[in-house]
């Protein structure tokens, strides 16, 4: 789960990490008042769950309260489109007004769990303020990785090492090491999947400040962080992904695809996307209905797929282990009749009660072509797409 910058900075402050003084505003008038209170030059920042705000016009440096009000008015209520959002962008409901910082040097620091090492790893770079992927690509020697210990956590000397690698001025070394230790505590204590500060700034008077703050919380651990779970902002999510999330379905919308995929199991779902591509079409989504999906969940999964206007054909690939094919089939038939969807379907159904499932689909009167397995599904899909293209000519 993503949270906003201002929420992440609240958490940072609770853990003793210095951030620029700032306030949240939901109206232009509030932004003006905040700018007046802070005084002098301020930065107005759109609060959205997406990176790339600066280039998209979502971050503005202004000199007066009047300008702050105007900048906020220009952001609030719009959908901000950045390279990380879809073409529709994400709505801006709040802006953060923060004191401007005298920047001498921009650094980068983040923490993730490295699954291969099995521990949290600090990634740090002297090249802050840019896309870290770009740094990794162009100047990998400016990127440092320091692993924590599963049981000891981050030892203080690790934090001092990172501060030294970042080449911060001597007088800021101690504060930087403390910030890194505190950041590690933020990561562990809140069950984060990502903590990122880009840029981490050395100011003109050699103070260290987290100019930006990004926190991703691990969904699977939210049960023990009710206060953090309450920070959920559904408006920032894709509508279909949000609906899928509430139904406990793993769904990812993929832009530009026309084949709606419904599969059980994440691996099989990925393999189904792959064969869709090789059949000559793009998948419209990743969708894993899960192991023990009941009929209601199948119906919602189907509704979500047909709510996607780009979907022209549906590919169902089921290998039922815990799930029952007949339940899935009945769910599809119910939802298709309820929504009046007439999209053609290609269905591969195997495993528990597969025969019964296929019978339910055959007798439904829906436009369904059966496929024997994964490879067969690719072939049937290719034929269907070819005949649809032929028919259109």
């Amino acid at each position, binding site marked *: 789960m993503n949270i906003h910058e201002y929420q992440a900075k609240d958490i940072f402050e609770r853990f003793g990490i210095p951030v620029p003084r700032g306030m949240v505003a939901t109206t232009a008038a509030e932004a003006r008042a905040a700018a007046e209170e802070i005084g002098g030059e301020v930065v107005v920042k759109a609060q959205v769950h997406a990176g790339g705000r600066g280039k998209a016009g979502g971050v503005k440096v202004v000199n007066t309260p009047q300008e702050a009000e105007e900048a906020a008015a220009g952001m609030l209520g719009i959908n901000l489109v950045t390279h990380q959002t879809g073409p529709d962008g994400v709505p801006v409901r709040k802006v953060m007004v923060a004191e401007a910082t005298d920047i001498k040097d921009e650094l980068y620091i983040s923490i993730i769990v490295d*699954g*291969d090492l099995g521990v949290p790893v600090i990634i740090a770079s002297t090249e802050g303020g840019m896309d870290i992927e770009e740094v990794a690509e162009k100047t990998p020697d400016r990127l440092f990785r320091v692993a924590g210990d599963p049981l000891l956590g981050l030892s203080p000397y690790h934090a001092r090492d990172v501060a030294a690698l970042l080449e911060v001025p001597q007088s800021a070394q101690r504060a930087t090491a403390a910030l890194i230790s505190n950041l590690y505590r933020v990561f562990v204590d809140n069950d984060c999947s990502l903590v990122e500060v880009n840029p981490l700034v050395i100011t003109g008077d050699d103070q260290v400040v987290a100019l930006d703050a990004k926190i991703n919380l691990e969904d699977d651990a939210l049960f023990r962080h009710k206060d953090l779970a309450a920070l959920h902002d559904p408006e920032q999510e894709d509508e279909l992904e949000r609906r899928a999330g509430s139904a406990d379905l793993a769904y990812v919308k993929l832009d530009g695809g026309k084949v709606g995929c419904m599969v059980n199991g994440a691996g099989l779902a990925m393999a189904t996307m792959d064969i869709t591509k090789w059949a000559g079409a793009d998948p419209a989504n990743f969708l894993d209905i899960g192991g023990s999906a009941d009929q209601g969940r199948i119906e919602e999964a189907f509704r979500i797929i047909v709510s996607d206007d780009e979907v022209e054909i549906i590919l169902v690939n089921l290998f039922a282990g815990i799930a029952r094919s007949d339940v899935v089939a009945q769910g599809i038939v119910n939802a298709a009749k309820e929504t009046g969807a007439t999209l053609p379907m290609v269905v591969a159904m195997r495993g528990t009660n597969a025969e019964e499932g296929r019978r339910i689909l055959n007798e439904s009167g829906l436009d369904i072509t059966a496929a024997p397995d994964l490879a067969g599904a690719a072939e049937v899909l290719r034929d269907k797409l070819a005949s649809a293209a032929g028919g259109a000519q």
Partner: protein
Amino acid sequence: MSVLVGPNTKLLVQGLGRDGSFQASRMREYGTNMVAAVHPNREGQKFEDAVPYFSSVADAVKETGANTGVIFVPAPFAADAIVEQVDAGLDVVVCITEGVPVQDMVKINAYVKGSASRLVGPNCPGLIHPASKAKVGIIPGNIVEPGRIGVVSRSGTLTYEAIAQLVQVGLGQSSCVGIGGDPIHGTTFTDVLELFQEDDETDAIVMIGEIGGVREQLAAEFIADRVTKPVVAAIAGQTAPPGKRMGHAGAIITGKAGLASEKNRALTEAGVHVVESPAYIGARMKEVVG
């Protein structure tokens, strides 16, 4: 010989709620020697009038001699169940539970490594050894056939897919191991490859990987160094976009190494028969073993 689960397996099942009970029945039905059930407040009762319930794993092990445990308890309590089974001295601990917090696994995996137990999972379908009718987990018993191909996979349903394809071309399985889709998991591809290489029931190996992480590359290195048996491999998620989590927490491309193309290249260089999709595993294995 068998891989982790076989004729000597004496199984303890922990967590007999709706799913756990259903799966325990399937395991017994298949022929697995289930000796103990662990669930709160059922001490003195019997599962299906046959298998005694215990409140603690240690008691169950002492009374029944169980050597293998399988965990179905809900995710918030799964880490604790793993520790309990390890402390009770079980040789193999299989965690089926999905959604165990990653930072729980950071600690658990380090703890397990310092013990004599082997952890499989979490978020995995478990293991099956068709020749001895031993099944620990949720792989459907009716789709496997005894034979000489070892199967190892991160994904549950892709394991079933591979098994079905093998059966279709007349190839049975020696053992099938699902290692799980989480970024931090106990037994790795490399561990299972080593076991298959030593296993006299296994002639050839199917390995199904996914995008994300570098486990497949580590497996490729191991294969180049140590595995003399033929390996057929496929990587799922060739078309997945970077930065998006594809259901499995481990299946997120966060760097170049996580790309399917990088994994395919490493495996091909290690002499593995790489197929472009899990859809073609059975056919390729048939070509390889004749």
